[in-house]
Protein backbone atom coordinates (compact mmCIF):
# COMPACT_ATOMS: atom_id res chain seq x y z
CA UNK A 1 0.00 0.00 0.00
CA UNK A 2 2.64 2.52 1.02
CA UNK A 3 5.01 1.63 -1.80
CA UNK A 4 2.22 2.10 -4.34
CA UNK A 5 1.45 5.55 -3.00
CA UNK A 6 5.06 6.58 -3.19
CA UNK A 7 5.66 5.47 -6.78
CA UNK A 8 2.49 7.04 -8.19
CA UNK A 9 3.24 10.38 -9.91
CA UNK A 10 0.40 12.06 -8.06
CA UNK A 11 1.26 15.68 -8.76
CA UNK A 12 1.83 15.53 -12.52
CA UNK A 13 -0.47 12.73 -13.67
CA UNK A 14 -3.91 14.27 -13.43
CA UNK A 15 -5.79 11.07 -14.14
CA UNK A 16 -3.74 9.05 -11.68
CA UNK A 17 -4.18 11.62 -8.94
CA UNK A 18 -7.92 11.63 -9.48
CA UNK A 19 -8.02 7.86 -9.19
CA UNK A 20 -5.85 7.99 -6.12
CA UNK A 21 -8.15 10.60 -4.63
CA UNK A 22 -11.13 8.37 -5.20
CA UNK A 23 -9.36 5.39 -3.69
CA UNK A 24 -8.41 7.42 -0.61
CA UNK A 25 -11.98 8.68 -0.22
CA UNK A 26 -13.39 5.18 -0.58
CA UNK A 27 -10.90 3.83 1.97
CA UNK A 28 -11.72 6.60 4.43
CA UNK A 29 -15.45 5.97 4.01
CA UNK A 30 -14.90 2.26 4.53
CA UNK A 31 -12.81 2.87 7.63
CA UNK A 32 -15.47 5.16 9.08
CA UNK A 33 -18.18 2.60 8.35
CA UNK A 34 -16.17 -0.26 9.86
CA UNK A 35 -15.40 1.76 13.00
CA UNK A 36 -19.09 2.60 13.42
CA UNK A 37 -20.77 -0.67 12.52
CA UNK A 38 -18.30 -3.44 13.29
CA UNK A 39 -18.86 -3.43 17.09
CA UNK A 40 -22.61 -4.01 16.54
CA UNK A 41 -21.89 -6.74 14.01
CA UNK A 42 -19.43 -8.49 16.31
CA UNK A 43 -21.69 -8.35 19.37
CA UNK A 44 -24.56 -9.74 17.31
CA UNK A 45 -22.31 -12.63 16.24
CA UNK A 46 -21.15 -13.18 19.82
CA UNK A 47 -24.75 -13.29 21.04
CA UNK A 48 -25.43 -16.15 18.61
CA UNK A 49 -22.44 -18.26 19.68
CA UNK A 50 -22.24 -21.01 22.24
CA UNK A 51 -19.56 -20.68 24.94
CA UNK A 52 -17.07 -22.84 23.03
CA UNK A 53 -17.20 -20.63 19.93
CA UNK A 54 -16.93 -17.44 21.99
CA UNK A 55 -13.62 -18.54 23.49
CA UNK A 56 -12.26 -19.94 20.20
CA UNK A 57 -8.71 -18.90 19.31
CA UNK A 58 -8.48 -17.23 16.85
CA UNK A 59 -11.96 -15.66 16.93
CA UNK A 60 -14.23 -17.37 14.45
CA UNK A 61 -16.65 -15.83 11.98
CA UNK A 62 -18.11 -19.19 10.97
CA UNK A 63 -19.98 -21.25 13.53
CA UNK A 64 -23.34 -22.91 13.95
CA UNK A 65 -25.55 -20.18 15.42
CA UNK A 66 -27.60 -20.81 18.53
CA UNK A 67 -30.37 -18.89 20.25
CA UNK A 68 -29.41 -20.32 23.65
CA UNK A 69 -28.19 -16.97 24.96
CA UNK A 70 -31.49 -15.25 24.11
CA UNK A 71 -33.44 -18.20 25.51
CA UNK A 72 -31.51 -17.88 28.76
CA UNK A 73 -32.38 -14.16 28.87
CA UNK A 74 -36.07 -14.79 28.34
CA UNK A 75 -36.19 -17.65 30.84
CA UNK A 76 -34.89 -15.21 33.39
CA UNK A 77 -32.17 -17.48 34.65
CA UNK A 78 -28.81 -18.63 33.49
CA UNK A 79 -27.90 -22.19 32.75
CA UNK A 80 -24.74 -23.73 34.08
CA UNK A 81 -23.18 -24.51 37.38
CA UNK A 82 -23.06 -21.05 38.93
CA UNK A 83 -26.27 -19.96 40.51
CA UNK A 84 -25.21 -16.89 42.48
CA UNK A 85 -26.22 -14.63 39.60
CA UNK A 86 -29.69 -14.93 38.21
CA UNK A 87 -30.42 -11.78 36.26
CA UNK A 88 -34.14 -11.55 35.53
CA UNK A 89 -33.89 -9.76 32.21
CA UNK A 90 -37.58 -9.65 31.20
CA UNK A 91 -38.29 -7.92 34.51
CA UNK A 92 -35.42 -5.46 33.92
CA UNK A 93 -36.83 -4.69 30.47
CA UNK A 94 -40.27 -4.06 31.94
CA UNK A 95 -38.73 -1.86 34.65
CA UNK A 96 -36.96 0.22 32.01
CA UNK A 97 -40.23 0.76 30.16
CA UNK A 98 -42.25 1.61 33.30
CA UNK A 99 -39.68 4.03 34.71
CA UNK A 100 -38.88 5.70 31.38
CA UNK A 101 -42.55 6.18 30.46
CA UNK A 102 -43.42 7.40 33.94
CA UNK A 103 -40.55 9.89 34.01
CA UNK A 104 -41.39 11.30 30.59
CA UNK A 105 -45.10 11.58 31.43
CA UNK A 106 -44.41 13.49 34.64
CA UNK A 107 -41.90 15.75 32.90
CA UNK A 108 -44.23 16.57 30.03
CA UNK A 109 -47.17 17.33 32.34
CA UNK A 110 -45.06 19.69 34.45
CA UNK A 111 -42.99 20.88 31.52
CA UNK A 112 -45.69 22.08 29.10
CA UNK A 113 -46.96 24.98 31.23
CA UNK A 114 -43.41 25.84 32.33
CA UNK A 115 -42.13 25.89 28.76
CA UNK A 116 -45.14 27.99 27.73
CA UNK A 117 -44.34 30.51 30.47
CA UNK A 118 -40.68 30.67 29.44
CA UNK A 119 -41.52 30.98 25.75
CA UNK A 120 -44.35 33.51 25.84
CA UNK A 121 -44.21 35.54 29.05
CA UNK A 122 -41.62 37.89 30.45
CA UNK A 123 -41.07 37.99 34.19
CA UNK A 124 -38.22 38.67 36.63
CA UNK A 125 -35.48 36.02 36.89
CA UNK A 126 -36.62 34.39 33.64
CA UNK A 127 -33.11 34.07 32.23
CA UNK A 128 -31.75 32.98 35.59
CA UNK A 129 -34.33 30.22 35.78
CA UNK A 130 -33.47 29.07 32.28
CA UNK A 131 -29.82 28.95 33.25
CA UNK A 132 -30.53 26.93 36.40
CA UNK A 133 -32.48 24.44 34.30
CA UNK A 134 -29.64 24.16 31.81
CA UNK A 135 -27.06 23.67 34.56
CA UNK A 136 -28.72 20.41 35.66
CA UNK A 137 -27.40 18.93 32.43
CA UNK A 138 -23.85 19.32 33.77
CA UNK A 139 -24.11 18.34 37.43
CA UNK A 140 -22.17 15.19 38.41
CA UNK A 141 -24.86 12.66 39.30
CA UNK A 142 -23.10 11.56 42.49
CA UNK A 143 -23.86 14.96 44.07
CA UNK A 144 -27.57 14.06 43.88
CA UNK A 145 -27.41 10.33 44.30
CA UNK A 146 -25.75 10.32 47.73
CA UNK A 147 -28.42 12.44 49.47
CA UNK A 148 -31.19 10.80 47.45
CA UNK A 149 -29.98 7.38 48.55
CA UNK A 150 -29.99 8.45 52.21
CA UNK A 151 -33.42 10.10 51.86
CA UNK A 152 -34.93 7.16 49.98
CA UNK A 153 -33.79 4.74 52.69
CA UNK A 154 -35.75 6.78 55.23
CA UNK A 155 -38.79 7.50 53.04
CA UNK A 156 -39.19 3.97 51.72
CA UNK A 157 -38.57 5.10 48.15
CA UNK A 158 -35.43 2.99 47.78
CA UNK A 159 -35.91 0.21 45.23
CA UNK A 160 -39.25 1.55 43.97
CA UNK A 161 -40.39 2.70 40.55
CA UNK A 162 -41.72 5.95 42.02
CA UNK A 163 -38.32 6.75 43.53
CA UNK A 164 -36.60 6.19 40.22
CA UNK A 165 -39.19 8.25 38.33
CA UNK A 166 -38.60 11.13 40.71
CA UNK A 167 -34.80 10.87 40.44
CA UNK A 168 -35.04 10.70 36.63
CA UNK A 169 -36.68 14.14 36.68
CA UNK A 170 -33.11 15.42 36.98
CA UNK A 171 -32.56 14.03 33.50
CA UNK A 172 -35.89 14.66 31.80
CA UNK A 173 -37.44 17.78 33.34
CA UNK A 174 -34.79 20.38 32.38
CA UNK A 175 -34.46 18.70 28.99
CA UNK A 176 -38.23 18.69 28.39
CA UNK A 177 -38.66 22.34 29.36
CA UNK A 178 -35.80 23.53 27.16
CA UNK A 179 -36.87 21.47 24.17
CA UNK A 180 -40.55 22.41 24.40
CA UNK A 181 -39.63 26.06 24.88
CA UNK A 182 -37.58 26.01 21.67
CA UNK A 183 -40.47 24.36 19.79
CA UNK A 184 -43.07 26.78 21.24
CA UNK A 185 -40.91 29.74 20.24
CA UNK A 186 -40.96 28.57 16.63
CA UNK A 187 -44.71 29.19 16.41
CA UNK A 188 -45.28 32.67 14.93
CA UNK A 189 -46.50 35.08 17.58
CA UNK A 190 -49.08 36.47 15.08
CA UNK A 191 -51.15 33.28 15.29
CA UNK A 192 -51.28 33.65 19.05
CA UNK A 193 -52.30 37.32 18.78
CA UNK A 194 -55.04 36.43 16.28
CA UNK A 195 -56.41 33.82 18.70
CA UNK A 196 -56.40 36.38 21.51
CA UNK A 197 -58.38 38.83 19.37
CA UNK A 198 -60.88 36.05 18.76
CA UNK A 199 -61.37 35.89 22.52
CA UNK A 200 -59.04 33.08 23.55
CA UNK A 201 -57.66 33.22 27.11
CA UNK A 202 -54.08 32.10 27.83
CA UNK A 203 -55.47 28.61 28.35
CA UNK A 204 -57.22 28.75 24.99
CA UNK A 205 -54.02 29.90 23.32
CA UNK A 206 -52.15 27.01 24.90
CA UNK A 207 -54.68 24.25 24.19
CA UNK A 208 -56.02 25.43 20.81
CA UNK A 209 -52.97 27.04 19.22
CA UNK A 210 -49.64 26.14 20.82
CA UNK A 211 -50.23 22.48 21.60
CA UNK A 212 -51.83 21.42 18.28
CA UNK A 213 -49.18 23.27 16.27
CA UNK A 214 -46.27 21.84 18.26
CA UNK A 215 -47.48 18.22 18.38
CA UNK A 216 -44.54 16.97 16.28
CA UNK A 217 -42.15 18.79 18.61
CA UNK A 218 -43.83 17.29 21.66
CA UNK A 219 -43.60 13.84 20.10
CA UNK A 220 -39.88 14.33 19.45
CA UNK A 221 -39.36 15.54 23.02
CA UNK A 222 -41.20 12.52 24.43
CA UNK A 223 -39.20 10.05 22.34
CA UNK A 224 -35.83 11.67 23.14
CA UNK A 225 -36.72 11.94 26.83
CA UNK A 226 -37.66 8.26 26.82
CA UNK A 227 -34.28 7.43 25.24
CA UNK A 228 -32.34 9.44 27.83
CA UNK A 229 -34.18 7.56 30.60
CA UNK A 230 -33.44 4.27 28.89
CA UNK A 231 -29.72 5.19 28.90
CA UNK A 232 -29.69 6.07 32.60
CA UNK A 233 -27.32 3.89 34.56
CA UNK A 234 -25.89 5.57 37.62
CA UNK A 235 -29.13 6.64 39.33
CA UNK A 236 -30.68 3.16 39.20
CA UNK A 237 -27.32 1.59 40.07
CA UNK A 238 -27.57 3.17 43.52
CA UNK A 239 -31.30 3.78 43.97
CA UNK A 240 -32.79 0.56 42.58
CA UNK A 241 -32.65 -3.03 43.77
CA UNK A 242 -33.03 -6.39 42.07
CA UNK A 243 -36.80 -5.86 41.68
CA UNK A 244 -36.47 -2.48 39.97
CA UNK A 245 -33.19 -2.67 38.00
CA UNK A 246 -33.50 -1.36 34.42
CA UNK A 247 -31.73 -3.06 31.49
CA UNK A 248 -28.59 -0.94 31.82
CA UNK A 249 -27.92 -2.12 35.36
CA UNK A 250 -29.26 -5.55 34.46
CA UNK A 251 -26.70 -6.03 31.71
CA UNK A 252 -23.71 -5.73 34.05
CA UNK A 253 -25.18 -8.44 36.28
CA UNK A 254 -23.71 -10.96 33.85
CA UNK A 255 -20.31 -10.11 35.28
CA UNK A 256 -19.89 -11.93 38.57
CA UNK A 257 -17.01 -12.99 40.73
CA UNK A 258 -17.01 -16.48 39.30
CA UNK A 259 -17.16 -15.69 35.60
CA UNK A 260 -18.37 -13.40 32.87
CA UNK A 261 -21.26 -14.82 30.88
CA UNK A 262 -20.06 -13.33 27.58
CA UNK A 263 -22.77 -14.81 25.38
CA UNK A 264 -25.67 -13.77 27.56
CA UNK A 265 -24.13 -10.37 28.15
CA UNK A 266 -23.85 -9.89 24.38
CA UNK A 267 -27.50 -10.91 23.96
CA UNK A 268 -28.46 -8.53 26.78
CA UNK A 269 -26.63 -5.60 25.17
CA UNK A 270 -28.40 -6.29 21.85
CA UNK A 271 -31.80 -6.35 23.58
CA UNK A 272 -30.98 -3.22 25.59
CA UNK A 273 -29.77 -1.40 22.47
CA UNK A 274 -32.64 -2.38 20.18
CA UNK A 275 -35.23 0.22 21.31
CA UNK A 276 -32.58 2.93 21.03
CA UNK A 277 -31.65 1.94 17.48
CA UNK A 278 -35.30 1.87 16.36
CA UNK A 279 -36.23 5.13 18.09
CA UNK A 280 -33.14 7.02 16.90
CA UNK A 281 -34.18 6.25 13.32
CA UNK A 282 -37.56 7.86 14.05
CA UNK A 283 -36.12 11.09 15.44
CA UNK A 284 -32.80 11.23 13.59
CA UNK A 285 -33.24 14.85 12.51
CA UNK A 286 -33.70 15.99 16.10
CA UNK A 287 -31.08 13.99 17.99
CA UNK A 288 -28.40 16.69 17.86
CA UNK A 289 -30.94 19.29 18.95
CA UNK A 290 -31.98 17.06 21.83
CA UNK A 291 -28.44 16.31 22.97
CA UNK A 292 -27.62 20.01 23.16
CA UNK A 293 -31.00 20.88 24.77
CA UNK A 294 -32.01 22.95 21.76
CA UNK A 295 -28.74 24.90 21.49
CA UNK A 296 -28.07 23.51 18.01
CA UNK A 297 -31.00 23.07 15.61
Amino acid sequence: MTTAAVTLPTVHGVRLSRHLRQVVIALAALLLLAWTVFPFFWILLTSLKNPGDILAVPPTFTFSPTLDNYAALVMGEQRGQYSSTRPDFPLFFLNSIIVSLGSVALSVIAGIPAAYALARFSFPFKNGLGFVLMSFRFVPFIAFVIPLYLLYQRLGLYNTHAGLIFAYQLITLPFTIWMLRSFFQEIPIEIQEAAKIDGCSWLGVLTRVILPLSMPGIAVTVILGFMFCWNAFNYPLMLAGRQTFPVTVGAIQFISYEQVLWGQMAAATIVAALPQLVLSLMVQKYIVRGLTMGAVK
Partner: protein
Amino acid sequence: MLPYLLLAPALILLLGMVYPFGLGLYYSFTSYWLQYPNRFRFVWLDNYISLVEEPLFARALEFTLGFTLAAVVIQVGLGLAVALFLHARIRGRGAIRALMLMPLMMPPVITALMWKIMMASTTAGILNYLLSFLGIGPVNWFGSTEGAVVSVLIIDTWGNLPFVALILLGGLQALPSEPYEAALVDGAGPLATLRYVTLPLLSPFIVLVVLFRAMDSLRIFDVIYATTLGGPNDATTNLHIMAYQYSFQWYQMGKGMAQAIVLLLLVVTVSYLLMRLWNRAAESTV
Protein backbone atom coordinates in the same frame (compact mmCIF):
# COMPACT_ATOMS: atom_id res chain seq x y z
CA MET B 1 -48.67 36.09 38.62
CA LEU B 2 -49.77 33.83 35.77
CA PRO B 3 -46.26 32.82 34.63
CA TYR B 4 -45.40 31.68 38.16
CA LEU B 5 -48.60 29.66 38.29
CA LEU B 6 -47.62 27.98 35.05
CA LEU B 7 -44.14 27.31 36.38
CA ALA B 8 -45.37 26.01 39.73
CA PRO B 9 -45.49 22.25 38.96
CA ALA B 10 -42.01 22.29 37.45
CA LEU B 11 -40.66 24.48 40.25
CA ILE B 12 -42.05 22.14 42.90
CA LEU B 13 -40.33 19.19 41.20
CA LEU B 14 -37.13 21.24 40.91
CA LEU B 15 -37.30 22.14 44.57
CA GLY B 16 -37.63 18.44 45.30
CA MET B 17 -34.23 18.08 43.64
CA VAL B 18 -32.59 21.11 45.15
CA TYR B 19 -33.56 20.00 48.65
CA PRO B 20 -31.58 16.72 48.57
CA PHE B 21 -28.68 18.58 47.03
CA GLY B 22 -28.71 21.09 49.88
CA LEU B 23 -28.90 18.22 52.34
CA GLY B 24 -25.90 16.66 50.63
CA LEU B 25 -24.00 19.92 50.85
CA TYR B 26 -24.63 19.88 54.60
CA TYR B 27 -23.50 16.26 54.85
CA SER B 28 -20.22 17.20 53.18
CA PHE B 29 -19.37 19.10 56.38
CA THR B 30 -20.22 16.14 58.61
CA SER B 31 -18.65 12.87 59.59
CA TYR B 32 -21.32 10.51 58.30
CA TRP B 33 -20.59 6.78 58.32
CA LEU B 34 -23.56 4.78 57.14
CA GLN B 35 -22.84 1.84 59.46
CA TYR B 36 -22.11 4.02 62.51
CA PRO B 37 -24.97 6.55 62.79
CA ASN B 38 -23.82 7.38 66.33
CA ARG B 39 -20.63 8.92 65.05
CA PHE B 40 -22.53 11.56 63.09
CA ARG B 41 -21.23 15.03 63.92
CA PHE B 42 -20.45 18.34 62.27
CA VAL B 43 -16.76 18.55 61.36
CA TRP B 44 -16.54 21.82 59.39
CA LEU B 45 -14.00 21.45 56.59
CA ASP B 46 -12.35 18.25 57.85
CA ASN B 47 -13.64 16.14 54.94
CA TYR B 48 -12.31 18.58 52.37
CA ILE B 49 -8.92 18.89 54.10
CA SER B 50 -8.40 15.14 54.52
CA LEU B 51 -9.50 14.69 50.93
CA VAL B 52 -6.90 17.02 49.51
CA GLU B 53 -4.24 15.38 51.66
CA GLU B 54 -5.16 11.96 50.26
CA PRO B 55 -2.43 10.80 47.81
CA LEU B 56 -5.09 9.29 45.55
CA PHE B 57 -6.86 12.64 45.24
CA ALA B 58 -3.99 14.25 43.34
CA ARG B 59 -3.81 11.26 41.01
CA ALA B 60 -7.57 11.23 40.45
CA LEU B 61 -7.57 14.97 39.76
CA GLU B 62 -4.70 14.53 37.35
CA PHE B 63 -6.48 11.69 35.57
CA THR B 64 -9.76 13.64 35.44
CA LEU B 65 -8.10 16.65 33.81
CA GLY B 66 -5.77 14.62 31.61
CA PHE B 67 -8.56 12.38 30.40
CA THR B 68 -10.78 15.37 29.65
CA LEU B 69 -8.04 17.11 27.71
CA ALA B 70 -7.19 13.98 25.72
CA ALA B 71 -10.85 13.12 25.04
CA VAL B 72 -11.70 16.65 23.89
CA VAL B 73 -8.64 17.00 21.66
CA ILE B 74 -9.06 13.56 20.07
CA GLN B 75 -12.82 13.72 19.65
CA VAL B 76 -13.01 17.29 18.39
CA GLY B 77 -10.02 16.74 16.07
CA LEU B 78 -11.37 13.52 14.61
CA GLY B 79 -14.91 14.88 14.62
CA LEU B 80 -13.81 17.91 12.59
CA ALA B 81 -12.07 15.62 10.12
CA VAL B 82 -15.19 13.44 9.77
CA ALA B 83 -17.42 16.51 9.41
CA LEU B 84 -15.21 18.00 6.67
CA PHE B 85 -15.11 14.60 4.99
CA LEU B 86 -18.90 14.19 5.02
CA HIS B 87 -19.39 17.84 4.00
CA ALA B 88 -17.47 17.17 0.77
CA ARG B 89 -20.54 15.47 -0.77
CA ILE B 90 -18.98 12.06 -0.98
CA ARG B 91 -21.08 9.17 -2.25
CA GLY B 92 -23.10 7.42 0.43
CA ARG B 93 -23.01 10.42 2.76
CA GLY B 94 -26.65 9.96 3.79
CA ALA B 95 -26.09 6.32 4.69
CA ILE B 96 -22.93 7.05 6.69
CA ARG B 97 -24.67 9.89 8.49
CA ALA B 98 -27.61 7.64 9.43
CA LEU B 99 -25.32 4.83 10.59
CA MET B 100 -23.31 7.25 12.73
CA LEU B 101 -26.46 7.86 14.76
CA MET B 102 -26.30 4.27 16.01
CA PRO B 103 -23.50 4.66 18.58
CA LEU B 104 -24.79 8.11 19.52
CA MET B 105 -27.89 7.10 21.43
CA MET B 106 -26.57 3.87 22.91
CA PRO B 107 -26.55 3.69 26.71
CA PRO B 108 -22.87 4.41 27.57
CA VAL B 109 -22.75 1.39 29.85
CA ILE B 110 -23.96 -0.87 27.02
CA THR B 111 -21.31 0.65 24.73
CA ALA B 112 -18.72 -0.14 27.37
CA LEU B 113 -19.91 -3.75 27.67
CA MET B 114 -19.79 -4.20 23.88
CA TRP B 115 -16.17 -3.06 23.83
CA LYS B 116 -15.39 -5.10 26.89
CA ILE B 117 -16.38 -8.18 24.91
CA MET B 118 -14.24 -7.10 21.95
CA MET B 119 -11.30 -6.11 24.12
CA ALA B 120 -10.78 -9.47 25.77
CA SER B 121 -7.06 -9.51 26.51
CA THR B 122 -6.45 -13.01 25.28
CA THR B 123 -6.12 -13.89 21.62
CA ALA B 124 -9.82 -14.79 21.71
CA GLY B 125 -10.54 -11.06 21.75
CA ILE B 126 -11.50 -9.82 18.31
CA LEU B 127 -9.69 -6.51 18.66
CA ASN B 128 -6.36 -8.13 19.50
CA TYR B 129 -6.95 -10.59 16.66
CA LEU B 130 -7.52 -7.78 14.15
CA LEU B 131 -4.56 -5.79 15.47
CA SER B 132 -2.31 -8.83 15.09
CA PHE B 133 -2.60 -8.37 11.30
CA LEU B 134 -1.04 -4.93 11.74
CA GLY B 135 1.78 -6.46 13.75
CA ILE B 136 0.52 -5.06 17.05
CA GLY B 137 1.03 -7.71 19.68
CA PRO B 138 -1.75 -8.75 22.08
CA VAL B 139 -2.64 -5.66 24.10
CA ASN B 140 -3.56 -6.16 27.75
CA TRP B 141 -6.51 -3.78 27.43
CA PHE B 142 -7.98 -3.59 30.91
CA GLY B 143 -5.20 -5.33 32.81
CA SER B 144 -2.39 -2.81 32.35
CA THR B 145 -2.42 0.81 33.46
CA GLU B 146 -1.72 2.29 30.01
CA GLY B 147 -4.05 -0.21 28.35
CA ALA B 148 -6.91 0.69 30.68
CA VAL B 149 -6.55 4.42 30.05
CA VAL B 150 -6.41 3.87 26.28
CA SER B 151 -9.40 1.51 26.43
CA VAL B 152 -11.60 4.03 28.24
CA LEU B 153 -10.54 6.71 25.74
CA ILE B 154 -11.38 4.49 22.77
CA ILE B 155 -14.79 3.52 24.17
CA ASP B 156 -15.69 7.12 25.03
CA THR B 157 -14.57 8.25 21.58
CA TRP B 158 -16.65 5.60 19.82
CA GLY B 159 -19.75 6.75 21.64
CA ASN B 160 -19.22 10.49 21.25
CA LEU B 161 -17.40 11.03 17.96
CA PRO B 162 -20.75 11.07 16.09
CA PHE B 163 -22.02 13.83 18.41
CA VAL B 164 -19.07 16.07 17.57
CA ALA B 165 -19.09 15.20 13.88
CA LEU B 166 -22.82 15.79 13.41
CA ILE B 167 -22.82 19.16 15.19
CA LEU B 168 -19.81 20.36 13.20
CA LEU B 169 -21.34 19.00 9.97
CA GLY B 170 -24.50 20.97 10.73
CA GLY B 171 -22.33 24.04 11.35
CA LEU B 172 -20.48 23.59 8.07
CA GLN B 173 -23.74 23.30 6.17
CA ALA B 174 -25.02 26.53 7.74
CA LEU B 175 -21.97 28.62 6.77
CA PRO B 176 -22.53 31.45 4.26
CA SER B 177 -21.03 30.95 0.80
CA GLU B 178 -19.75 34.52 0.18
CA PRO B 179 -16.47 34.22 2.16
CA TYR B 180 -15.66 31.08 0.14
CA GLU B 181 -16.23 32.87 -3.15
CA ALA B 182 -14.00 35.71 -1.95
CA ALA B 183 -11.30 33.21 -0.93
CA LEU B 184 -11.56 31.56 -4.34
CA VAL B 185 -11.15 34.94 -6.07
CA ASP B 186 -8.12 35.67 -3.89
CA GLY B 187 -6.62 32.39 -5.03
CA ALA B 188 -6.58 30.73 -1.63
CA GLY B 189 -5.78 27.01 -1.66
CA PRO B 190 -7.86 24.44 0.23
CA LEU B 191 -5.62 24.55 3.32
CA ALA B 192 -5.60 28.34 3.49
CA THR B 193 -9.39 28.38 3.04
CA LEU B 194 -9.74 25.89 5.91
CA ARG B 195 -7.41 27.88 8.14
CA TYR B 196 -8.63 31.42 7.41
CA VAL B 197 -12.28 30.95 6.40
CA THR B 198 -13.80 27.71 7.66
CA LEU B 199 -12.29 27.43 11.13
CA PRO B 200 -12.98 31.04 12.20
CA LEU B 201 -16.56 30.83 10.91
CA LEU B 202 -17.03 27.47 12.59
CA SER B 203 -15.56 28.57 15.92
CA PRO B 204 -18.88 29.04 17.79
CA PHE B 205 -19.78 25.43 16.94
CA ILE B 206 -16.33 24.19 17.89
CA VAL B 207 -16.49 25.94 21.27
CA LEU B 208 -19.98 24.50 21.79
CA VAL B 209 -18.88 20.88 21.22
CA VAL B 210 -15.78 21.47 23.34
CA LEU B 211 -18.08 22.73 26.12
CA PHE B 212 -20.39 19.71 25.94
CA ARG B 213 -17.59 17.17 25.58
CA ALA B 214 -15.51 18.72 28.37
CA MET B 215 -18.48 18.73 30.77
CA ASP B 216 -19.27 15.10 30.04
CA SER B 217 -15.63 13.95 30.15
CA LEU B 218 -14.96 15.61 33.51
CA ARG B 219 -17.70 13.52 35.10
CA ILE B 220 -17.45 10.33 33.03
CA PHE B 221 -18.64 7.41 35.14
CA ASP B 222 -20.61 4.71 33.33
CA VAL B 223 -17.86 3.57 30.96
CA ILE B 224 -15.22 3.38 33.69
CA TYR B 225 -17.57 1.63 36.11
CA ALA B 226 -18.49 -1.06 33.59
CA THR B 227 -14.94 -1.74 32.40
CA THR B 228 -12.18 -1.04 34.92
CA LEU B 229 -13.96 0.24 38.06
CA GLY B 230 -11.08 2.70 38.40
CA GLY B 231 -8.35 0.09 38.19
CA PRO B 232 -5.88 -1.36 37.66
CA ASN B 233 -3.92 0.19 40.48
CA ASP B 234 -6.27 3.24 40.40
CA ALA B 235 -5.01 4.17 36.93
CA THR B 236 -8.52 5.08 35.71
CA THR B 237 -9.90 6.45 38.97
CA ASN B 238 -11.29 9.92 38.33
CA LEU B 239 -12.91 12.22 40.88
CA HIS B 240 -16.35 10.79 40.10
CA ILE B 241 -15.29 7.17 40.63
CA MET B 242 -13.45 8.22 43.80
CA ALA B 243 -16.60 9.88 45.17
CA TYR B 244 -18.52 6.70 44.37
CA GLN B 245 -15.93 4.57 46.18
CA TYR B 246 -16.04 6.73 49.31
CA SER B 247 -19.81 6.74 49.48
CA PHE B 248 -20.97 3.37 48.15
CA GLN B 249 -18.00 1.09 48.81
CA TRP B 250 -16.77 2.44 52.13
CA TYR B 251 -20.03 4.16 53.16
CA GLN B 252 -18.34 7.39 54.24
CA MET B 253 -21.19 9.53 52.98
CA GLY B 254 -19.77 12.83 54.24
CA LYS B 255 -16.43 12.34 52.55
CA GLY B 256 -18.07 11.09 49.37
CA MET B 257 -20.29 14.15 49.28
CA ALA B 258 -17.30 16.46 49.85
CA GLN B 259 -15.64 14.79 46.89
CA ALA B 260 -18.80 15.31 44.82
CA ILE B 261 -18.81 19.02 45.70
CA VAL B 262 -15.16 19.36 44.67
CA LEU B 263 -15.98 17.74 41.33
CA LEU B 264 -18.98 20.02 40.94
CA LEU B 265 -16.83 23.10 41.57
CA LEU B 266 -14.37 21.88 38.96
CA VAL B 267 -17.16 21.38 36.41
CA VAL B 268 -18.65 24.81 37.17
CA THR B 269 -15.25 26.52 36.79
CA VAL B 270 -14.46 24.87 33.49
CA SER B 271 -17.94 25.49 32.10
CA TYR B 272 -17.78 29.15 33.14
CA LEU B 273 -14.47 29.60 31.31
CA LEU B 274 -15.78 27.85 28.21
CA MET B 275 -19.05 29.81 28.26
CA ARG B 276 -17.08 33.05 28.22
CA LEU B 277 -15.08 31.74 25.29
CA TRP B 278 -18.32 30.80 23.55
CA ASN B 279 -19.80 34.27 23.98
CA ARG B 280 -16.64 35.80 22.58
CA ALA B 281 -16.62 33.41 19.61
CA ALA B 282 -20.31 34.06 18.94
CA GLU B 283 -19.81 37.84 19.10
CA SER B 284 -16.83 37.87 16.74
CA THR B 285 -18.70 36.03 13.98
CA VAL B 286 -22.06 37.84 14.02
